[in-house]
């Protein structure tokens, strides 16, 4: 037998280069679709140039390297630890200890990868008068919400481990839990307040299982399943993520029901902010200062008029935003005034604040470092506590050791580093690209032009006005302005609007507006464009989801390649795309979430009944892993852009549908594949 020796330095470099090249190319391919899609959509459909393309490209490079490091880190470090603990736990601990461990792990995972920031962002358009319960849960009881969700995930992990320990089938658990959730959802839909938290509850289920938790829990489940299995099962180890997606829904709905007992009913904005409604409003807010900040940051002119009581006080308060720093802070908090004027103020209020400079500062280079630092802390927080918990259990409690300690340590470092690069890259590259497209998306279905900036022309000389006539004989008044672009002077005619001219001060305020994509007769076409965009975005973002790729790798390994990672990822991506499209249609057309949620899950119950138990667990877990660090920011950017335009109460429900539909597509894929295989074999086997 020939003896192998360690490779020399040159060979080592070649090995490392080949190893890195394969992984980086693979991840570049996985994000190629979403990037091309976003860029082409913005340039060709929305016809808006890319802002700061270089910074975005840098961010995207971080995403590619981040994904490569992160996935490699999972394979080298986290998943082997998880599986080892899983294999050893049942032989050295009783079921009570296993359950306790599951609860601690699930609870810890929720705190390590907090989804609350994503949920708060999705709920950033919520108004206290329209959805007081939802507002309270997200703003005042957010810590209680995290504890409830954590408890739900903890119990789910514990139940999942029990299932492996006792070799329980997955389907009966689904049949037991899902109808309860659907019944509670239906019950909640009949209450004015509770109906508003249905989206939050189901979205909580979708986002709680993060990119680190999923592979860890999967590996742990596979370990316990192998050690405790009574029969062979290629689907062994799956099902915990499914439970971790369902139990938080139950926890949030129950929390809502408890809090709802002392929450005021929804009211109109005017009633809520009027002096008569102050007592009710103070049940939602801690102080009047919080009320006034909410009024300015999420309310409209109607609410502000009602709050200040008379025209004079109202105008004085608005003008004081520019003149009085204390008042600005009191009314707006940390919300920038220029952003408020651009996005929240009415035309009347903009006129009152005509002197304020609206130029926004773009992201400065120093902020890149800040982003990296912040994400490094978040990465450490997501990876280290869970890893330490597992290592402590493995070394101190189970008295086991790891064979490749150096490899595992390198894997953990890769995971943290990869997570940092990935989430920073998403913020700086993919996210900013998504935000750009998301913010311009509403113009696809807008009926009117949108105010985006203004130019104040002082010493306006009205003698420069001139008239022009159209072929139909309509006359309009114009004036010319010239801009200097590099060394060229360009003259442009602008239509003169008398309401914008202050003759006393000789000042003309020219509003810069964004035209709708379609003529107002065809604005409905814009909805089709937006829905098509949502489909493509959902599909592309899911292809790059790290947790889904980790699940795909696990499925491929457990089925020895009978189910390929690429197949799983493709089928799930189509499901997510369909789910996001349907979820977005709810926001666009404003129908209740329960109309699509309940039928979707009823279909799932039927499909689950028709599927094999092992495949059901894989399919349901696929639904739980889809909404991760790549998809969520893009969905939120899109939801917020559209939500602001349509003034919808919240953007919840998209992620819930993005979790449900992949299960439908994966179960359907499984049923069809099995049927086809059976037909092929049955032609002469029976």
């Amino acid at each position, binding site marked *: 037998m020939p003896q192998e020796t360690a490779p020399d330095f040159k060979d080592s470099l070649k090995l490392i280069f080949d190893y890195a090249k394969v992984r980086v190319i693979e991840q570049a391919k996985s994000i190629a679709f979403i990037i091309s899609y976003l860029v082409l959509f913005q340039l060709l459909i929305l016809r808006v140039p890319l802002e700061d393309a270089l910074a975005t490209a840098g961010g995207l490079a971080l995403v590619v390297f981040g994904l490569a490091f992160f996935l490699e880190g999972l394979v080298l470090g986290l998943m082997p630890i998880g599986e080892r603990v899983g294999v050893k736990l049942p032989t050295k601990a009783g079921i009570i200890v296993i359950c306790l461990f599951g609860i601690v792990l699930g609870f810890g995972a929720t705190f390590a990868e907090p989804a609350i920031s994503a949920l708060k962002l999705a709920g950033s358009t919520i108004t206290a008068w329209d959805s007081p319960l939802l507002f309270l849960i997200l703003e005042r009881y957010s810590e209680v919400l995290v504890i409830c969700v954590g408890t739900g995930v903890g119990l789910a992990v514990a139940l999942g481990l029990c299932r492996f320990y006792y070799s329980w089938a997955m389907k009966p658990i689904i049949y037991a839990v899902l109808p309860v959730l659907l019944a509670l959802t239906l019950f909640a839909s009949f209450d004015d307040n509770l109906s508003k938290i249905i989206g939050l509850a189901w979205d909580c289920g979708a986002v709680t299982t993060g990119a680190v938790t999923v592979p860890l829990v999967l590996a742990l489940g596979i370990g316990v399943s*192998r050690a405790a299995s009574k029969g062979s099962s290629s689907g062994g180890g799956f099902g915990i993520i499914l439970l971790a997606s369902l139990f938080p829904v139950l926890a949030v709905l129950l929390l809502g029901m408890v809090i709802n007992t002392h929450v005021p009913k929804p009211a109109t904005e005017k009633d809520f902010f009027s002096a008569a409604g102050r007592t009710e409003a103070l049940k939602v807010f801690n102080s009047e200062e919080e009320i006034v900040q909410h009024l300015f940051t999420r309310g409209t002119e109607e609410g502000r008029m009602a709050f200040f009581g008379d025209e004079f006080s109202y105008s004085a308060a608005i003008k004081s935003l520019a003149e009085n720093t204390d008042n600005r802070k009191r009314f707006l908090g940390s919300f920038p005034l220029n952003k408020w004027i651009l996005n929240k103020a009415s035309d009347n209020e903009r006129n009152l604040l005509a002197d304020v400079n609206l130029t926004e500062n773009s992201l400065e280079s120093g902020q890149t470092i800040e982003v990296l630092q912040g994400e490094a802390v978040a990465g450490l927080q997501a990876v280290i506590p869970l890893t330490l918990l597992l290592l402590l259990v493995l070394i101190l409690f189970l008295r086991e050791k790891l064979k490749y300690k150096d490899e595992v340590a390198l894997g953990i470092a890769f995971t943290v580093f990869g997570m940092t690069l990935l989430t920073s890259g998403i913020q700086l590259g993919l996210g900013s690209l998504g935000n750009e497209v998301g913010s311009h998306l509403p113009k696809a279905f807008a009926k009117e032009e949108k105010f985006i900036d203004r130019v104040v022309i002082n010493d306006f000389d009205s003698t420069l006005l001139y008239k022009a006539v159209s072929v139909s004989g309509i006359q309009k008044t114009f004036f010319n302005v010239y801009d200097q672009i590099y060394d060229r002077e360009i003259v442009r005619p602008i239509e003169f609007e008398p309401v914008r001219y202050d003759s006393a001060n000789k000042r003309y305020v020219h509003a810069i507006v964004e035209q709708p994509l379609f003529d107002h007769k065809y604005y409905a076409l814009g909805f089709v464009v937006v829905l098509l965009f949502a489909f493509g975005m959902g599909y592309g973002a899911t292809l790059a989801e790290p947790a889904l790729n980790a699940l795909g790798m696990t499925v491929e390994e457990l089925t020895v390649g009978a189910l390929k990672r690429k197949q799983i990822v493709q089928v799930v991506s189509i499901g997510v795309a369909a789910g996001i499209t349907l979820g977005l249609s709810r926001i666009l057309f404003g129908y209740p979430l329960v109309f699509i949620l309940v039928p979707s899950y009823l279909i799932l119950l039927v499909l689950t009944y028709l599927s094999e138990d092992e495949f059901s667990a894989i399919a349901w877990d696929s639904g739980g892993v889809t909404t991760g660090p790549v998809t969520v920011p893009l969905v939120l950017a899109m939801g917020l852009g559209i939500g602001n335009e349509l003034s919808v109460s919240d953007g919840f429900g998209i992620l819930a549908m993005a979790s449900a539909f992949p299960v439908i597509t994966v179960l359907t894929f499984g049923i069809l594949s099995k049927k086809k295989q059976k037909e092929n074999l049955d032609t*002469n086997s029976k």
Partner: protein
Amino acid sequence: MLSTENISQASIENEWIENFKAMGKEFRLVSRITCFLNQELDETLLDMLKQFDVDVFVESGRTVRLLVNESVLAILGANTKLQSTSVNVYRFTVPRDLSYKMVKSIALACNLELPGRGTVFSQDILEFSKKVNYVDEEKLDAFIAKNEDSELNLLSELSYLVFVLSNNSSAEKLAKLAINLGICVPLLTYGESNDVRDKMGLIRITVSPLKELVHLVLPEQDSQNIISLLMDEFQMKKGAGAIYNSPATSGVVDTRMLLGKQNSAASVDQVIAAIDGLKNDTKWRKRTDVDIKPKGFTPILAEDQCEIALISEDDDVEIFEKACKKQDKLGIIASKITSLGNRADIKVSNALAKSEISVDSQNTVLLVADIFNVAEEKNKSNFRIQILP
């Protein structure tokens, strides 16, 4: 490494028996039954095995067949693609004298004379284990008697080929070649090999431990030529992997390699299965009297080899690695398996590993002795050693 068995199996065995007796370790002459079926038949098999007190080990795998669909445009010819099906590979041992009856009972219970339902075969081995598998011969006889109308005849003089491929995702290519050569329905499994990686320090992360294993069962007289043909077609290069060839005493081989629309009363697979059954062997399938030699790379031919397998808990692969290290042997392939034990409590893990190595038959006794020595040092005794001459 290509292994053939030119030396009489019986004489090697006799020599070992003397040596093992001298070691004072208890061993048995048994047959290892390997079985992979259409998953819908797993329950039938497991129901049958429940009647006996045997430890069954299960490994995940997949079988690959070629799906032939007629193209919409006939001019383009037929579309072919590989179709994979998940299978569980069951392995257990029975006393040698009962192996034929056990294989026949399984084949009868699962109706394996119909192509497409699965493969079962037995191999004679020596086994060291604390647990003695007990099979009630009367039950087997009763079962066979109940199916006396069946025309099922087992094949004899089979070869079991295992290709261990270092290059991931090349197994499907090899499986397709095997199907195109009409060998049998290939079984694909995964294994891990770490001993070369372990010498590389942390740089080992650049080399995947994962190996793809392609398992083929075919007529013994054709095995050498088939190996040569496959190596040529597959363009197997130096370092691409290893091929192990071992004898199988009896079995039923799944020959349903093609799927799709059937245009005749019986498929070629059915005709082959029927002739195999009528002739009771596969000698009629011999393709050529000429010995085919690989045209390209000439493999290192290692004759007089035997397979040593350790079935143990996941961690105890270390015992095997240490013992092999003492003998300066490389090339352990470990596969994850689980036990279908009827456990009352879970203090014994079902997460097991089957680690195998091919060694010179002269070194077998020394290696087995080393395994026992290392196991004693580590205070481990819950394992099985299987030796296939």
